[in-house]
């Protein structure tokens, strides 16, 4: 099997607390930045409307959590339910990873965004609302609080608290091993060909 990226096993870092539900992909990366034909360079536009007071991105909004000095360099983004809802744009995980996030921990995720994360080595972790409260409280108390994620063990820890999370086995494998999904499927070309041979002619 071909391996194109480095896999994720453990992640340790500080977190940026975006205490909001229904953060949609239009907010994560607005449409005016979708005209690019490459995957790179979206990080500087991440959360553009909330992050900047002007269209030219020269005036950072000091009130927005991503701009707070104490959250610079955070590797983990915290949010509430239905994170990544709306458009299927993969530019959203591209912007988050380009900015430097390695994981998003939220109460729940929209389906397409969740799948897109898996294809970009961005780890989406869903925890219960009360578990999210624990993480938000820890970061509110101390912005330098370190959160540790152990993907093989499926745990998130902060201080003395350890919480477990669910992830499908195939998603975990792909993230841990950093496998090339297309390369894997191309190994099944014989199966694909026999499936096609059985399809009706009018399709």
């Amino acid at each position, binding site marked *: 099997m071909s391996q194109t990226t480095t896999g994720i096993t453990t992640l340790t870092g500080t977190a940026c607390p975006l205490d909001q539900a229904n953060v949609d992909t*239009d907010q994560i990366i607005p449409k005016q930045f979708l005209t690019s034909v490459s995957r790179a360079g979206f990080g500087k536009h991440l959360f553009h409307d909330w992050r900047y007071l002007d269209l030219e991105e020269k005036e950072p909004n000091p009130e927005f959590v991503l701009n707070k000095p104490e959250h610079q360099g955070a590797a983990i983004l915290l949010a509430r339910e239905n994170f990544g809802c709306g458009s299927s744009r993969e530019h959203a995980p591209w912007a988050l990873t380009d900015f430097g996030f390695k994981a998003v921990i939220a109460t729940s995720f929209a389906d397409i965004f969740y799948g897109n994360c898996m294809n970009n080595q961005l780890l989406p972790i869903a925890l219960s609302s009360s578990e999210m409260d624990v993480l938000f409280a820890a970061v509110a108390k101390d912005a330098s609080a370190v959160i540790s994620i152990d993907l093989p063990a499926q745990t998130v820890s902060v201080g003395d608290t350890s919480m477990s999370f669910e992830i499908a086995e195939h998603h975990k494998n792909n993230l841990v091993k950093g496998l090339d999904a297309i390369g894997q499927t191309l190994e099944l070309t014989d199966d694909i060909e026999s499936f096609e041979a059985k399809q009706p002619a009018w399709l």
Partner: protein
Amino acid sequence: MAKTLYDKVWQAHIISQLGDDSLIYIDRHLIHEVTSPQAFAGLNEKGRKVRRPDRTFATMDHSISTRSLALDACGPQNKLQLQTLAENCEEHGVKLFPVGHQKQGIVHVMGPELGLILPGMTVVCGDSHTATHGAFGALAFGIGTSQVEHVLATQTLKQSRGKTMQIKVNGKLAVGITAKDIILAIIGKIGHAGATAHVIEYCGEAIEALSMEERMTICNMSIEAGAKAGMIAPDQTTFDYLKGREFAPQGADWDAAVEYWQTLYSDDDAGFDTVVELEAKDITPQVTWGTNPGQVIGVNDPVPGPDDFTDSVEQESARKALQYMGLKAGEKLGDVPVSHVFIGSCTNSRIEDLRAAAHIAKQGKVAANVTAMVVPGSAAVKRQAEEEKLDVIFKDAGFEWRLPGCSMCLGMNDDLLTAGDRCASTSNRNFEGRQGRGARTHLVSPAMAAAAALRGKFADVRDFQE
């Protein structure tokens, strides 16, 4: 064992089972300029080919001007993206309907009108509104660009089976109520994330009575309830719509296809993970008041406030939404002036939508405080509308009549609002900034949008019925 419609289509496409995941075959792949360039670049880097160019169709819709057919009308970056699509399609042998082509249109309008979408198919596109095609009893869903690349290279996707949700709309709709009102009422009831991880099947008397275009409006917004996909069982309405369309089967193939399509329904005793029921007679003209499509009310209802919600997250969302939308709890939308009206998008830009809007438009003139535009969903819709002189009705009433494209639904071209603008829009998302930074979007049906244009405020379309 009894099966749902979704189970039948899903199981018919499993190539192999890979642990808790299935490798499923994709029958139809639609592509456009925004979410495909990085996928083709990925293929080219690895020296991979498009496995089935014959099952892949492309159009230009998101980044194009609705004022000019020139590719550079919206600047060099948009032009580069459009040219990149043209080059990729040329290199990989994919059929493209570019700007100016008689078959060009919004991808979810163009596909069905050409007969590219058939019952029982699996259909994907790098666009969340791919759910539209479930109206034909296809399993259709939006995918990210890495998955676009995966489908281009292999004509397959790895997917987990979704949960099932049945949404039954009983009885008959009241006069003046449209498919858009049904789907907004559904999202209002189950919430913006109410169908996450589910594939919805819409059924019941009110759904069965809908035309294909109305069914597309319903399925289109499945994603706005968080669903993976939305489906409606094919019936005679479906077959009548498809017969004779360019890419639909013909002759003996047609008969064989219909025979198969008639097996695509949920068995009587099939179980669903979740069941939701609505009474059609209770549905009134819907208008969103907030910043997600679940924040919706009847046009005559008061705008809710945080105290109307019990959940603390919803309370906070309502507080934030009211602030962004410049509305107060208790306010009536009938008192709220609009500055813009947009009739278009993959939700509501088909010929029946334009007829419904024109029926209202001919009853007056666009109010002095309103800028109103109509953007047909495809070149074919535009031709048909002009043949019926709907363009004349719109222009006489003071609406702008534009070229087909996604336009102000997301404003990737120059059809953009500015901060503080308030728009009655027939599109699908009222997110903050969706139609322009600081702009306020209210989702409505085409008739309601036209009524708002004439009145200059939100209006009850039932007051316009002749």
